[in-house]
């Protein structure tokens, strides 16, 4: 039972990683930018969630604001920050992104205070044991939301016109354009979806921890980079697998490896090992 529970906890953590990392991999797949500031959007999702909930009391409304608000902001960031430096060597957008991330964290601190913000009336905190598994409502919701969102993303990309346009543009932007697909719109869409996923993840984590801090994004920021590399930069499927696998490994690692290796180092040990064997990551393709 314990092993199963640890596994489930790992999947839980992994699904949050997945929500963040999928957005990052979408951005990388299309534009080859390592978008560190993505984690800043994740934190913003947390803030939107808690601030809207505390003032309105509606979980639905705060969810919508966290998802769509962050999504739109992601598009704006792309437009203002990245569009002009796409053809620079890769470290230029990377460092710009890191600078942006530091600035975002500080901006949150100045705007929302350094102590962090908690839900005045924390939602979804009740325990809901199901079949001997002890998870909070919030944790069940997390799993559910991840499945819905990632399933939705899969549906969107495989069953809709927009998704088709997106997949075509990722593989060959020039040819996609030849058949009438607007690559600029696809980029906006891409940033919107990726950022919205991060915003949702941020809000979920805000609820689970009942705490949204300015530095909330610091862990996912770099770990998500490791995940998308493990998944084979740009591969959504690979990213999902890598995120879930990492969640599970960390879950067991926390209990059984705690005094050998830091939890946050586990991802990178794996990363280095995998890259030495397979310099292109575990998976290729979309």
């Amino acid at each position, binding site marked *: 039972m314990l092993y199963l529970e640890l596994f489930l906890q790992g999947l839980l953590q992994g699904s949050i990683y997945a929500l963040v990392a999928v957005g990052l991999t979408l951005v990388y797949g299309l534009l080859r930018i390592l978008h560190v500031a993505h984690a800043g959007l994740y934190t913003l999702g947390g803030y939107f969630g808690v601030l809207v909930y505390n003032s309105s009391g509606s979980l639905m409304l705060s969810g919508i604001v966290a998802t769509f608000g962050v999504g739109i902001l992601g598009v704006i960031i792309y437009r203002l920050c990245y569009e002009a430096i796409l053809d620079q060597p890769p470290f230029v957008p990377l460092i710009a992104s890191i600078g942006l991330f530091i600035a975002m964290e500080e901006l949150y601190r100045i705007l929302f205070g350094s102590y962090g913000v908690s839900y005045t009336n924390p939602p979804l905190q009740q325990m809901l044991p199901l079949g001997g598994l002890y998870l909070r409502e919030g944790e069940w919701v997390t799993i559910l939301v991840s499945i819905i969102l990632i399933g939705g993303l899969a549906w969107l990309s495989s069953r809709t016109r927009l998704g088709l*346009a997106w997949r075509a543009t990722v*593989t060959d932007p020039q040819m996609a354009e030849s*058949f*009438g*697909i607007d690559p600029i719109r696809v980029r906006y869409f891409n940033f919107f979806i990726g950022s919205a996923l991060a915003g949702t993840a941020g809000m979920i984590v805000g609820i689970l921890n009942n705490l949204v801090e300015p530095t909330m994004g610091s862990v996912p920021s770099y770990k998500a980079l490791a995940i998308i590399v493990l998944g084979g930069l740009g591969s959504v499927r690979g990213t999902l697998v890598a995120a879930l696998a990492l969640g599970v490994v960390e879950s067991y690692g926390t209990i059984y490896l705690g005094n050998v290796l830091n939890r946050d180092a586990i991802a990178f040990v794996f990363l280095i090992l995998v890259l030495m064997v397979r310099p292109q990551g575990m998976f290729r393709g979309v």
Partner: protein
Amino acid sequence: MLKIEKLSCGYGSLTVVHELDLTVREGSIHALIGANGAGKSTTLMTIAGHVQVKSGSIQISSERLDQVPTKERVRLGVAIVPEGRRLFADLSVRDNLEVGGYSQPKENISRNLERVLTLFPRLGDRLKQESSLLSGGEQQMLAIGRALMAEPRLLLLDELSLGLMPRMVEDCYIALQQLQREGMTILLVEQNTQQALSVADDVTVLESGTVAWRGTAERARQDTSIIEAYIGLRREPKTD
């Protein structure tokens, strides 16, 4: 149908095609041949909107194509089958075809799909397969099919026979002739000269980015030495 006047184009500071004049008659198959690096593919990609026009004009049915953004050219009836096919490798055969029909209203798609599958029945069995898993010939068929999904009036074909088994090439060419009979205009870049001449109505030979010879395919077929000269197999080119 397609009228190119004094077109110069190229990449960055490099001009590959110089002052090219080219007219493709409505409903004809026009072959563009010449040695490697003569500017054939560049011309095609310029028409499709992927290479920068430096001067001159491209008109399609008296509309200035070169002033239309790339993504909208397909709506004016231009579709390309590029060199190396450039399929969307991770997408299924069906999805590739659907991208081809992206510019079309929904109701046309199933009709066009049917048309493509009639033309290339082999694709029908493979609709769900990833396109990268197809054989070379099937990939070429898919590339043509993808372009047909856009209901083009002008089909641009680049190096159709490259790397294909003769049998497959033949199948593709038979399909082209079928398309021509249905009224399509085709501009063809081909290094398999004989093959191209066998189906073309008109021929333009490019050399170093300019027109070296132009005439009917009929003439070129009667005297293969014309073409051979231009790709260097004969010592003295016959003058026209």
